[in-house]
């Protein structure tokens, strides 16, 4: 598939430096990330593991630009994203990131095809072009025959595959997956993991996956543990 814009060809795609994130809960302040530093090379399939509250989902959100750090910096493809304006960040996100959620988060009012089309509505592409890409993405995840079905008419595994199709339809460099198999049975989960691996190995996408499941993590090229908002060894997790 054709690229919209290419990030720099630097071997390191993601550079995170001294990242802090605080949340205010009523009168309390929670320190979720405490000075995290991390480099992720292009083409890696990284699994983030750790107990709940370790900050892995928060890190994912920050990398995807749907949240902002309290301090520290995030560079993706040479572009510093934590200082971008809201509109610029939204624009950047639409082009360079694909999200895959645990609960799929498909729009129930739209069918599979239209759900996958959503990110393309933000580009300047004409209808025919858009549909070409949509069908290519659905083909890739093996759901071409379900294009006209609404999420309610799909199984969990099928919904997630639509989710993946939506995530890749704009051909982003980065795929961020938050517990993508968390709600699926073993068989469907395996199918999803197969797909993610294919995206990584065959399409060259960098995949960062948050997971509880060691079985899923085993599919990654590297596993990184987290605890209390910083990187940790497997033993400490």
């Amino acid at each position, binding site marked *: 598939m054709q690229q919209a814009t290419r990030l720099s060809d630097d071997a390191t795609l993601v550079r995170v430096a001294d990242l802090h994130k605080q949340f205010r809960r009523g009168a309390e302040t929670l320190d979720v990330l405490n000075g995290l530093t991390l480099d992720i090379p292009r083409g890696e399939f990284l699994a983030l593991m750790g107990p709940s509250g370790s900050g892995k989902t928060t890190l994912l959100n920050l990398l995807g630009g749907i949240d902002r750090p309290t301090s520290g910096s995030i560079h993706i493809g040479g572009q510093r994203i934590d200082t971008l304006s809201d509109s610029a960040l939204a624009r950047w996100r639409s082009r360079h990131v694909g999200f895959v959620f645990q609960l799929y988060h498909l*729009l129930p009012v739209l069918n599979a095809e239209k759900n996958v089309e959503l990110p393309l509505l933000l580009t300047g592409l004409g209808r025919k072009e858009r549909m070409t890409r949509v069908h290519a993405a659905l083909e890739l995840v093996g759901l071409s025959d379900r294009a006209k079905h609404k999420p309610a008419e799909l199984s969990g595994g099928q919904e997630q595959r639509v989710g993946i199709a939506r995530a890749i339809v704009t051909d982003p460099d980065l795929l961020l997956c938050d517990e993508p198999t968390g709600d699926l049975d073993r068989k469907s989960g395996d199918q999803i993991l197969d797909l993610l691996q294919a995206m990584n190995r065959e399409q060259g996408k960098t995949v960062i996956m948050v997971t509880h499941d060691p079985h899923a993590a085993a599919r990654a090229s590297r596993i990184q543990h987290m605890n209390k908002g910083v990187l940790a060894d497997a033993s400490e997790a």
Partner: protein
Amino acid sequence: MKFLGLLWANLRRRKTRLIVTLLSILVAFFLYTYLSAVKTAFTSGLDIAGADRLVTIHKVSLIQLLPVSYAQRIANVEGVEQVVHATWFGGYYQDPRNQLGVFPTTEAYFDIYPEIGISDEHMQAWRRDRTGVLVGMASMNRFGWKVGDKLPITTSIWGNKNGSDTWEFTIAGTYDAAKEGVDTTAIIFHYDYFNEARAFGQDMVGWYILRIDNPDRAEEISKEIDALFANSPYETKTSPEKAFMQGFMSQIGNIGAIFIAVVGVVFFTLLLVAGNTMAQSVRERTPEIAVLKALGFSNPRIVTMLLAESLLLAVLGGGAGLGLAWWMVTAGGDPTGGYLPAFFVASGDLVAGIAMILFLGLAAGLLPAWQAARLNTVEAFRKVV
């Protein structure tokens, strides 16, 4: 345009709610449009009153009569081009409740009111028949009369010399409106016949209508005419036709204000209904809006989409209501069967209605859209999990 599919899909989220809200909006705008036609019926006289026409009545009241001899003296005033007189006959057809506007007058009546049109043929027929009448199309249609019918009209004022209160006429022809909004309910007959056959009040008429050459001199000419007859037994009051109509309308009451008050209440409650629907719809969609943000839809874009959705709702419902009422007014006509002098939807009211639709759409969507913009994506996801 490409987002239209998404907008419509979102509206159809809960079909019943959509239908119910659309119907609410439809009903409200139907009411507005139909009522505006009723309001226009009461005030339309104002808009078509000729700027170059004056009306001269007895100073005390329209009820009192003036000498027919005044016509010549008024015509001699500089600036007056034509003078016509008319009188209220107080006629009804069969039942006293079928009051009609019946006027004995002269042929010049049709000159001074160019907005009513009559064919030469009918005019000739009327000239030839002393007891003939010309009937406006509205009344013709209301009673189903035909040209050539004998028409007995009973008067509550002008007893005939022959001792009866019922005068015998023949329908010589008809006239119709040459412009929108013109009253075609009136019946016209010959002053000469009237003057000769009436039991009393000879050589007296109800009022004068005059055309002047220069509308700017209306005030001046009015004063001049009234000065002619000041301190005489029959003093006059002359005013431009529009002012005369206005004075008349103000006697009935402030119809415009009542109309606005009713429309105001309706619109206010409608805003609540539509606003509530939008607010509910958006509240249900919090996770989806979060997803859109995650996908890269910016805040301004999301706000625009929600406002567009709300506008779509308003336009569909309001447009249907407006259209339906407009059709009913135009095709169905006067609901009182001929009593109203005119009955149509004024273009000004139509434009105002469209503006109200747009305003409704924007206002109903404003708060929900703003809330959606403020939505914190992360919090929204967290809520679901």
